[in-house]
């Protein structure tokens, strides 16, 4: 690490600040993205107003719809939170996808294996299994970053594919549902299924509680302070006697545990088993959601609900207006582009002009 390099810093403001003005940017970004997508829908020959109406009516128009939306939002809150924790430490964890998958598979395994336990023991065990494996996968990247200087963006992306291959192998061999030819695990035992309280899924409340916990840790505890300091200025942190290596690894472990928990909640609350087609894209959505929420542990919740709502309403939208559900992927990309583009960011006064990037080898 040479002294002349630009210090790795996160683009975010202190966790405590919560000024209303800066929240206009995400809202405008969402509206502009929807407008651009509307033009594309129109060009495809469908009616954008019908499409959006159907999308949001399905997602937020009834209690069932809201329950579905919150269910879809749960893993998104957690993957957004995972990415946000990484960014706070100056790490860009784009491997939430792989960490989430390993968590989903681990929870499916725990949900099938531990027989004869009451729900209030079985569910926590399965959740912890998911968080544990997610944290191991992220820990590999954290370790390589801290001790070998390998950039976390590359290792996390590569681990996404590696985890997917391993999960695919396990789901088609050791963990496959007996006497079935499909690549998937058995359904988890009833004691591991997470309850739904009149359409409102338990997982969502766990996710919100975790977001509050992370908010408290980052803003009020010593370990949170270490993470924030390393994220702001690595050299200053080192000079102040903080172990940068340990902080980088622990931030990745926490980030991975949250993402793994996201996968576990999805398995125990929605899919009830692991199959390769499940959970896709949830980790990548986390990147958009984290940036949309201005890397604030609580700011990600509205963003996750919005995207979750779109995912929940997408199938009905296709039925009503003929627009492909992949519209949501396009919207996510546009939102990400707009929310991070400094052109509009600077329009609303922004002081951050610093870079996270400082080469591959530091």
């Amino acid at each position, binding site marked *: 690490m040479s002294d*002349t390099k*630009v210090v790795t810093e996160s*683009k975010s403001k202190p966790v405590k600040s919560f000024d209303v003005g800066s929240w206009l940017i995400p809202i405008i970004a969402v509206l502009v993205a929807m407008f651009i997508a509307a033009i*594309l829908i129109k060009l495809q020959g469908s009616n954008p107003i019908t499409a959006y109406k159907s999308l949001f009516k399905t997602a937020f128009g009834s209690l069932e719809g809201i329950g579905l939306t919150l269910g879809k939002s749960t893993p998104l809150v957690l993957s957004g939170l995972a990415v946000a924790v990484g960014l706070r430490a100056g790490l*860009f964890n*784009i491997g939430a996808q792989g960490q989430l998958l390993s968590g989903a598979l681990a929870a499916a395994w725990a949900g099938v294996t531990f027989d004869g336990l009451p729900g209030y023991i079985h569910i926590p065990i399965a959740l912890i299994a998911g968080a544990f494996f997610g944290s191991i996968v992220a820990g590999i990247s954290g370790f*390589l970053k801290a001790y*070998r*200087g*390998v*950039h976390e*963006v*590359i*290792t996390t*992306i*590569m*681990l996404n*594919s*590696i985890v997917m*291959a*391993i999960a*695919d*192998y396990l789901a*088609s*061999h050791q963990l496959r549902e007996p006497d079935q030819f499909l690549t998937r695990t058995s359904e988890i035992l009833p004691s591991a299924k997470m309850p739904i309280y009149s359409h409102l899924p338990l997982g969502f409340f766990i996710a919100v509680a975790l977001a509050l916990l992370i908010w408290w840790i980052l803003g009020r505890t010593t370990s949170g302070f270490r993470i924030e300091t390393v994220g702001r200025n690595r050299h200053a942190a080192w000079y102040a006697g903080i172990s940068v290596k340990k902080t980088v690894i622990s931030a990745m472990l926490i980030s991975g545990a949250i993402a793994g928990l996201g996968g576990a909640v999805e398995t125990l609350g929605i899919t009830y088993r692991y199959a390769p087609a499940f959970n896709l894209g949830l980790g*990548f959505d986390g*990147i*958009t959601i984290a*940036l949309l929420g201005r890397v604030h542990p609580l700011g990600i919740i509205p963003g996750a609900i919005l995207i979750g709502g779109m995912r929940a309403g997408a199938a009905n939208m296709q039925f009503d207006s003929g627009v*492909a559900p*992949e*519209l949501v*992927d*396009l*919207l*996510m*990309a*546009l939102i*990400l*582009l707009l929310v*991070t*583009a*400094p*052109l509009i960011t600077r329009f609303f006064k922004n002081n951050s*002009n610093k*870079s*996270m*990037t*400082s*080469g*591959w*080898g530091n």
Partner: protein
Amino acid sequence: MKLLSKRNGYFLIAFLATLFFYTRDGDITTSVYATGTAFALPLALAAMVGIMCERTGIVNIGIEGTMLLSAFVAFFVSSLTQNIMIGLFAAILTGSIMGLLLALMAVSWRMDQIIAGTILNILATGLTSFLYVQGKTIPNVFQAIEVPGLSKIPFFGPVLFIHGPLTFLGLAVILTLYVAIYHTPWGLRSRAVGEHPSSADTAGVSVARLRYINVTIAGAIGALAGAYLSLELVGSFERGFTAGKGFTALALMIFGRWNPLGALGAALFFGLAQAYANQLMIDQVVNIPSQFTAALPYIMTIVVLTISAGKVRPPAAEGQPYEKGQA
């Protein structure tokens, strides 16, 4: 030049290993090497994108997205017009636009370059999955050409001189880039901008302009890699078609020390390793589950980076936005 350098050692080992396999079974060895070259080309081209950008100080992790979107455009424009040449040009235009977008974000807006590249990747994924239509076909793929005379040489003929036109074009791009970087004024200016932009600025080089030009051309090269995949090697397009090649290419760039020939060598090593793994499966010498051979390039990428990290030095100004007048 030292005769007993480490690099010559690698060449000697590679040469002896090839000779050994060739004497055991000539036909299979030749076909493995030919397949390996075909696998290596898109990786090598994608690594060129990285080299061109990083030599001028721009980190481009959007290579994957550039390749994906251009492969998509190449295939669907070819399908729409029933003409693969038009598809190829549309792809190159798309790649240049992606490069221009990155330059806009990284140079003019001074955005974090890692986030800018990620935006390209997510944008490409979003656009290709939204606009993707099933069941489209293209009239033909770029057919292999046998270079007269040269293709008759045993071993080297089939490995190097029987390929589609995009392969030859790609190899030409790589060699040209090597010469251009080390032996032309443009190359010297680019390297200066990547190492110490304020000095280059003082010497009268427009940092921003050179970065714009290089990143845009790099986008076009990335498009060539994408078009090669959909119009020559595979002849189709699926969602998530490029399967992480753009990221592997970054590792190859680092392994090749930001040198076009070094990256080409690293890509050939990768391509051959995959071709060998495939051959071992076909011969049923070993029974590796398909998931593990699929994961092999990713594992190798991490291993390569772990080994070479700390031993190589990236361009000094990489990843930093430049402001006129800064020290």
